[in-house]
């Protein structure tokens, strides 16, 4: 790692002051992405602002139909939290299906949203990469791209967003809370990440000096009937080739009243499929016409490259499977 200075503020205000005074500094939370990338020479901040001793940023609260997760809450603690498990089981699954027990104990929820791509060209500084070194080109478009994105890509970048938690957060209409030089603001999770376009190095709407302070999502029939399905090369400790965050509120006759869907693994950012509510309302998950339309809408505009065309049919199957599982779980809880 390149040498850096290290500061531990006790308060959020002091952390924000430091971030504004030292624009090249980076916040350090769990360090599972940042320290790794610093060791690889992909990022080299001259200063780390360790935010772990700021109080009050790691609380998890469920009240009044809303779940609020502090940005410093650790993945393992959020996944195990009683309210998360019972009222948003898909969110707990999205955390438990990610990384390993050790990494989940370290990684913060805020940091998890900011997880960087696993694209090999981004992580190896000997290759061109527009995300790591803007203007240097993309090694992946005509290179090793089996793991990379088919949705939301650009001529500059086909990196995929690798996280799991953000996919479920987007499906369940979550919100990300930010604090920074211009004060506090709330951003819908669905618009927090940016598409690469011609600036793939800018991945989110975070402004310079801003930090994530909390994450929230509404609790209700949808969150209680949510599921995260992750398709991957290994059954554990592996990134998604495709993942599906699905939620459905079922009527007693088994038809869907309301539904949500977002995809991960195959897109440049967490990929909401906003047509899900309309296409599935009044239908059953085994309705081939409705499900076919939803699958078409989900992968509409997909642009496969040499190695990743398999993700399109994989996503279609995973969507059908996720809603079928939700229907079974719903029937089980009624019975």
């Amino acid at each position: 790692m390149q040498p850096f200075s290290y500061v531990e503020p006790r308060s959020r205000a002091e952390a924000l002051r430091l971030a504004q005074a030292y624009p090249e500094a980076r916040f350090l939370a769990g360090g599972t992405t940042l320290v790794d990338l610093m060791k690889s020479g992909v990022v080299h901040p001259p200063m780390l602002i360790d935010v772990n001793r700021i109080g009050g940023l790691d609380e998890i609260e469920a009240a009044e139909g809303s779940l609020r997760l502090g940005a410093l809450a650790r993945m393992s603690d959020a996944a195990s939290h009683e309210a998360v498990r019972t009222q948003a089981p898909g969110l707990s699954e999205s955390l438990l299906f990610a990384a390993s027990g050790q990494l989940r104990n370290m990684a913060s929820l805020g940091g998890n949203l900011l997880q960087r791509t696993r694209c090999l060209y981004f992580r190896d500084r000997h290759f061109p990469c527009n995300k790591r070194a803007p203007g240097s080109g993309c090694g992946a478009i005509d290179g090793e791209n089996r793991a990379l994105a088919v949705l939301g890509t650009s001529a500059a970048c086909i990196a995929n967003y690798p996280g799991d938690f953000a996919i479920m957060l987007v499906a369940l209409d979550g919100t990300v809370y930010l604090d920074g030089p211009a004060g506090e603001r709330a951003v819908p999770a669905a618009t927090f990440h940016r598409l690469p376009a011609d600036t793939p190095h800018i991945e989110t709407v975070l402004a310079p000096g801003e930090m994530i302070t909390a994450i929230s999502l509404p609790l209700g029939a949808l969150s209680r009937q949510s599921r995260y399905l992750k398709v991957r090369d290994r059954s554990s400790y592996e990134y998604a080739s495709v993942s599906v965050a699905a939620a459905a509120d079922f009527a007693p006759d088994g038809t869907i009243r309301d539904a949500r869907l977002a995809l991960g693994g195959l897109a440049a950012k967490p990929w909401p499929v906003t047509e899900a509510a309309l296409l599935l309302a009044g239908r059953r998950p085994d309705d081939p016409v409705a499900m076919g339309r939803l699958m078409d809408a989900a992968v509409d505009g997909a642009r496969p490259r040499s190695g990743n065309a398999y993700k399109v049919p994989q996503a279609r199957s995973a969507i059908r499977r996720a809603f079928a599982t939700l229907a079974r779980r719903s029937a089980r809880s009624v019975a």
Partner: protein
Amino acid sequence: MVAPRPDTAFAVHDPLAAVTLRLTVNGAVTEVSVEPWTTLLDALRERIGLTGTKKGCDHGACGACTVLIDGRRVLSCLTLALSARDGAITTIEGLAAPDGTLHPMQRAFAEHDALQCGYCTPGQIMSAVAVLAEADAGRPSAATDPAHRVTGRADLDEREIRERMSGNLCRCAAYQNIVAAVREVAEATDPSRP
């Protein structure tokens, strides 16, 4: 330079400066000189001389460097030594009793031949010790049915152990015997069993 402020808990302003820290490792407070970029793994191995904790990938992918901080398993290769200074760190050297009696998990690994080259073993054992504590605390895993509540280490069947131990790679593939060792300790030390 960063001006000293009352709401700054700690700072190392000179990137090239070594600072002296007090780390609590296996119950003993040890003074150690580190730079801001020194990982806990390097501090343990190179500065304190506790070489039981292994450096495998050094990128958080293999689990060989697993230690406990305040009872939670973490990767020491991705933890800065500076950040670890308030915690109680336990390494493989701290598991056996002072008289040398092995921890039940160490004994089970030896009895089940749960290793070949042994390089991943300290990390496997530290992780396994934490897995039992996580099950005791009712923590679920990806292998847990969402409708089921984990009540203790009795719930650690083979599937659960494989999932919970997936962050510890063994290139010799001693997984069968590792699972058997963890399972035996989970069953033998289950407090709910007579």
